[in-house]
């Protein structure tokens, strides 16, 4: 009797355990349906207070239950649910590059960075190590040390080790910080049940189920979101600087021409000049006297034809010809007029500058040249607007961008921003993001705005100017706003990234897989159908060939599959399509084990053994073969799990679980079932052998 109970327990306990483990999955889907119907009713009844109350009651009663069930349920992989799988890499090279003191950056440093970047592409070594190795090779022989380019804390006390330590800490914290910031962004965006994992020393892997707008997601993930408030310095010093750049380039070109060298970066290109609108050429000839009323105008192009004058102007001013400049007299009363740089005499006042899309590249190229960089004072930087000027685009179908000369050091950064809200500006129906600051920020903001009334402050996000409004009066309370977004969706994204925080180091998406929901449903359907057929066929075959023994095997396989699925749920694993394939394969392999056993039993019966002893022999002799063959498959599963990614791992996991379950169900449970039947008094058990054996 004891033995019988033991055998029953062997069969029953795993089943009960499985039911317990799988219950949350059932409960979650049950509550999901309930929730859906409650919300549906609410929308149908147009959100009457009654239905809203019903929703509240539902949440109260079942909310927590639902959350718990969702945590413990069997999750469906992205390939079955639809969604986005993203691998992102943190650009540590950029982080190191930006940690360097910008004025000290020279060709040698850039070379080390380039070599580091190229090497980092092909290896998984920590980027810092690669950088230091390359620094040793390329920079030290030229007499440079880390101290040349970096600083670490106290100026008096800095050593190379301290610098290395600081860079290392930055790199490590950058990845963790990136993970947190991205988690926060995804959370605020509203993705349910995302998976975020660190991989190696610079990668983050994301699984985002149910994402429908991939482009938005990509923006959300890759925006650095560095917010800065900079003072605008579009003053006479700016234009004087531009004039100096012009002169430098023109002189250089003349010298090179004398030597027979042509520099394509600055030689005036005829096609380029013709794209600049007529306003410019008229300004050169007619208006040069107009604008510089008070200055002594010695028109250097007097007496020349219009064309000749233009040509000479462009040759003399290769930089400023790329954009248009405007002057507004101080006090904001006078008219804004275009100006040119023919004469080095500029009145005090407000200036603004407009670039064209076609000249953008050349503009940036010139500004990035090391010999030009030294001309630009340390305290300023030149930043363009994010959005193209609407008026120009509507009127002339040309994309143009204003750019600003800004004080490099920001007055305030995004760290003080504690709140953001995307909404519509009531006055002009443009999207706007309202921001709130913490106490410290509010104080500083009040001081800054107080000191700069009637001047402009630029709001810069990721090195692009979103707006540069004129400060009307001192702002207390720490409120400010960003305008200049293209649409409300962009404003919404901005709200999220401002609230979640900026990334310390830029991140880049290197792998992206998107499964549409319809493919997901198809996959579920075909997966289930294939499993169903496989199962059906196996059951039939076993019944026909091994008769009652086959029945036992079938029941064991059924328990096997239930166990695999419940163990998967217990491990909080996800079921993917390859995972379903793994289960189907497990069915095949499980049956194999029984085939081995039953063939052996039949053999022993033919050799003349009694039923009981044949069964014993069958199980024991087949054991070694079953174990060996399953262990080898398990080994390959293990290797697949460690070398594979995503769905492949899902397959390996179900395969391995399936093998362990097989060893249990097909050997122990099957045996228990057979012996149970015999213990209950049966004298004959059919394994497909004929009723009466002729020995």
């Amino acid at each position, binding site marked *: 009797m004891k033995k019988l109970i033991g055998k029953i327990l062997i069969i029953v306990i795993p089943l009960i355990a499985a039911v317990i483990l799988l219950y949350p999955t059932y409960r979650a889907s049950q509550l999901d349906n309930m929730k859906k119907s409650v919300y549906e009713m609410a929308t149908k009844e147009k959100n009457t207070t009654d239905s809203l109350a019903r929703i509240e009651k539902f949440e109260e009663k079942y909310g927590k239950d639902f959350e718990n069930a969702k945590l413990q349920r069997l999750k469906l992989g992205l390939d079955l649910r639809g969604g986005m799988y993203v691998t992102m890499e943190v650009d540590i090279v950029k982080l190191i590059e930006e940690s360097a003191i910008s004025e000290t950056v020279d060709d040698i440093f850039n070379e080390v960075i380039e070599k580091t970047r190229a090497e980092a592409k092909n290896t998984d070594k920590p980027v810092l190590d690669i950088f230091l190795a390359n620094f040793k090779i390329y920079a030290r022989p030229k007499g440079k040390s880390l101290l040349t380019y970096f600083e670490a804390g106290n100026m008096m006390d800095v050593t190379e080790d301290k610098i290395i330590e600081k860079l290392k800490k930055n790199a490590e914290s950058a990845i963790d910080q990136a993970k947190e910031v991205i988690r926060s962004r995804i959370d605020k965006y509203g993705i349910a049940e995302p998976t975020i994992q660190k991989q190696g020393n610079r990668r983050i892997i994301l699984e985002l189920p149910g994402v429908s707008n991939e482009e938005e997601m990509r923006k959300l993930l890759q925006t650095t979101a560095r917010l800065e408030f900079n003072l605008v310095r579009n003053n006479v010093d700016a234009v004087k600087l531009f004039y100096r750049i012009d002169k430098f380039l023109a002189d250089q070109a003349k010298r090179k021409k004398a030597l027979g060298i042509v520099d394509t970066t600055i030689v005036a290109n005829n096609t380029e000049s013709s794209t600049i609108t007529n306003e410019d050429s008229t300004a050169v000839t007619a208006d040069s006297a107009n604008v510089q009323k008070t200055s002594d105008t010695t028109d250097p192009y007097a007496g020349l034809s219009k064309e000749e004058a233009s040509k000479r102007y462009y040759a003399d001013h290769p930089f400023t010809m790329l954009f248009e400049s405007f002057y507004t007299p101080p006090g904001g009363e006078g008219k804004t007029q275009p100006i040119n740089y023919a004469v080095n005499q500029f009145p005090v006042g407000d200036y603004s500058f407009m670039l064209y899309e076609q000249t953008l590249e050349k503009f940036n190229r010139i500004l990035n040249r090391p010999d030009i960089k030294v001309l630009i004072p340390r305290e300023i930087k030149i930043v363009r607007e994010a959005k193209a000027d609407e008026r120009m685009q509507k009127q002339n179908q040309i994309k143009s961008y204003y750019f600003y000369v800004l004080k490099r050091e920001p007055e305030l950064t995004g760290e003080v921003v504690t709140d953001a809200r995307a909404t519509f500006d009531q006055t002009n129906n443009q999207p706007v993001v309202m921001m709130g600051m913490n106490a410290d920020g509010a104080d500083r903001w009040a001081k800054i705005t107080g000191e700069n009334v009637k001047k402009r402050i630029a709001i810069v996000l990721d090195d692009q100017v979103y707006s540069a409004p004129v400060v009307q009066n001192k702002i207390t309370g720490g409120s400010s706003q960003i305008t200049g977004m293209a649409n409300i969706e962009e404003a919404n994204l901005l709200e999220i990234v401002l609230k979640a925080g900026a990334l310390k180091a830029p991140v880049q998406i290197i792998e992206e897989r998107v499964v*549409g929901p319809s493919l997901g449903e198809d996959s579920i359907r075909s997966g289930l159908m294939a499993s169903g057929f496989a199962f059906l066929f196996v059951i039939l075959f076993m019944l026909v060939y091994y008769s009652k023994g086959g029945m036992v095997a079938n029941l064991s396989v059924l328990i096997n599959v239930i166990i695999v699925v419940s163990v998967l749920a217990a491990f909080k694993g996800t079921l993917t399509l390859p995972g379903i394939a793994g289960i189907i394969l497990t069915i095949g392999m499980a049956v194999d084990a029984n085939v081995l056993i039953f063939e052996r039993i039949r053999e022993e019966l033919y050799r003349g053994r009694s039923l009981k002893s044949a069964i014993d022999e069958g199980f024991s002799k087949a054991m070694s073969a079953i174990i060996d*063959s399953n262990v080898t498959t398990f080994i390959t599963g293990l290797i697949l799990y460690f070398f594979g990614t995503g769905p492949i791992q899902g397959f390996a996991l179900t395969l391995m679980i399936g093998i362990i379950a097989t060893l249990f169900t097909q050997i122990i449970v099957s045996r228990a079932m057979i012996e149970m039947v015999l213990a209950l008094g049966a004298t004959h058990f059919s394994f497909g052998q004929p009723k009466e054996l002729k020995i």
Partner: protein
Amino acid sequence: MRFFHGTKIDFVGKRHIFFWVSLTINVVGILAVLLMGIEYGIDFEGGTELAYQFSKPIHTDQIRKAVENAGIKDPEIKSFGQSNQYLVRVKYATDLDKKIHESFKKNFPEEQVLTLKVDKIGPKIGIELRNQAFLAVFFAIIAIMIYVAFRFEFSYGFGAVIALIHDVILTFVVIVVVNKTGLVNLEINQSIVAAMLTVVGFSVNDTVIIFDRIRENVKEKQKGVGYLKLVNLSINETLSRTINTVLTVVIVLLTLVLLGGPVLQGFAFTMLIGIITGTYSSIYIASAFVIWYLGKFKKINLEEDDPKLTGLKTAKA
């Protein structure tokens, strides 16, 4: 009901013929693959793959024109699952889905095109995945060789590995050839490699079952029976089980190939080929190798009962 009971097929007698046949097929296969070139999926080469569903089958040329009109160079158009579903493959780029969708709208105005999936792999990750795949196959084979050598004997481990390598090569060749015919999309990508690894695990199953029987027969052998006869006996004895198991797994895989949908098709097909070659190699190659090795290096007398055989380590069963 009983099949294959009491068969007395001579498997080892003609082993030399089978050896040469296999060797020839393998060498010819490798040459063919080298000549035809291997087509890698975007997993290993980097690139972008987009799958679309139309309401009815469309000629691939029209689809290609539409994609090229969107400004995309050199797209590859393949079938994907059902006859109205197609796969577009191009070099790695972003924002392609939008452009292609717009082009489809222009070129096929009555069609409602559904985007089924978009996969983008950067070239760096592609190379990484490829290297990992090679390593995985390599380690799997080594691990199995060690395990079998441990459970049986070194010569058996070696024999199993030879059979495995044969399986991997042959399966790979068949995959590349069938892919070229365009019947099934079998570009070498992660799931194909996963299938091959699973084949490695399975194929060893078969081999181990036969080895296990050989080991048992050697232990309890009747007097005067040479090794060759023992091997033959073992294979014949396990034939019934081999056929049954292979049959069940093959039908299970066939269901996957036919019903499992496009995502699993390559995987299931690869496994199917692998199981068949695996069975062949277990019967004709693995034991043949052990026989050869024992005869040549251990100088076992194969025809008659050789006392040296019992000296062989019979591992713990």
